[in-house]
């Protein structure tokens, strides 16, 4: 991807996200407070974040790839279940990923 395209993505998405925030302060509340709109908005983050977890952990391009990332993710899940602080979760995941990389060459 060219630098210009990358910059365009960065700027368009930034302006778009800002306008979404501004819209909330500007539109009549009734537009957004319909039950089905609230329902969709409540659940979009779960669907998208889970999709990103899956794609980032076990895919590369169009292929499923199992490597240190999945091990790191498992370690992160365990740490989160034990209520470890965010930074500890990331450090443990990173250490697991690096370890697998070193062991498997």
């Amino acid at each position, binding site marked *: 991807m060219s630098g210009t395209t990358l910059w365009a993505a960065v700027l368009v998405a930034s302006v778009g996200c800002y306008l979404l925030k501004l819209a909330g302060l500007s539109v009549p509340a009734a537009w957004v407070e319909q039950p089905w709109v609230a329902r969709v908005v409540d659940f979009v983050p779960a669907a998208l974040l889970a999709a990103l977890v899956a794609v980032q952990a076990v895919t590369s391009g169009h292929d499923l790839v199992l490597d240190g990332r999945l091990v790191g993710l498992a370690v992160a899940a365990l740490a989160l279940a034990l209520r470890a602080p965010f930074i500890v979760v990331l450090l443990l995941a990173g250490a697991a990923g690096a370890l697998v*990389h070193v062991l498997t060459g």
Partner: protein
Amino acid sequence: MSTAARSATLRDAIGLGAAVGLYGVAFGAAADAAGLDVWQAMVLSALMFTGASQFALVGVLGAGGSAAAAVGSALLLGTRNTVYGVRLAPLLSPRGLLRRAATAHWVIDETTAMAVSAPDRQLGRLAFWATGATIYLGWNLMTLVGALGAAALGGAARAALDAVVPAAFLALLWPRLRKGFPEAQVQRRVALGGAVVALVLTPFVPSGVQVIAAVVAVALAGRPRPKAEEGA
């Protein structure tokens, strides 16, 4: 408002800002891993300033996705800020276009949570501005640290960073799945559905599109309840 209540609000805001700043390091590192330069990472934190959307944009780009798929994911995740704005408007009642435009920039998960849970309206406003200012400062500063730090890495450290990115998304998702979050069971079902849809589509669609397509999993949440529960 009492001095004690004021300082309690400020203390909470600053504590939260410091904690969220740590996510900024992870974002800066993720942006670098995705091929963005330090300036692009900084512009995202300064202008977009909404964590999940920023992570989604660089996540999709990092996975080889198109610019359109990356922007689409970021915007979809940004829709919840619209709902936050509606909730905050009566509390903050920003007068005039300029004030409203300035207020909008800081309408995010954390400022909304702090403002609506404050005991009264004055403290709610204080919580919004104090949380916004602390997080804005910490988030941008730490993005720079993360982006510069990651750019200096190589070899095994890269493999570590690759493992950190999915872990960071999991950490963003986790609180929604935990007991106590409104309808946590349904959130789990939707999350599982989203992950399955994305993985099944991965071999067949252009990179990044599977992430956007995963919103169909929201259908698993079912119809709104007659009396909707109050979400966070």
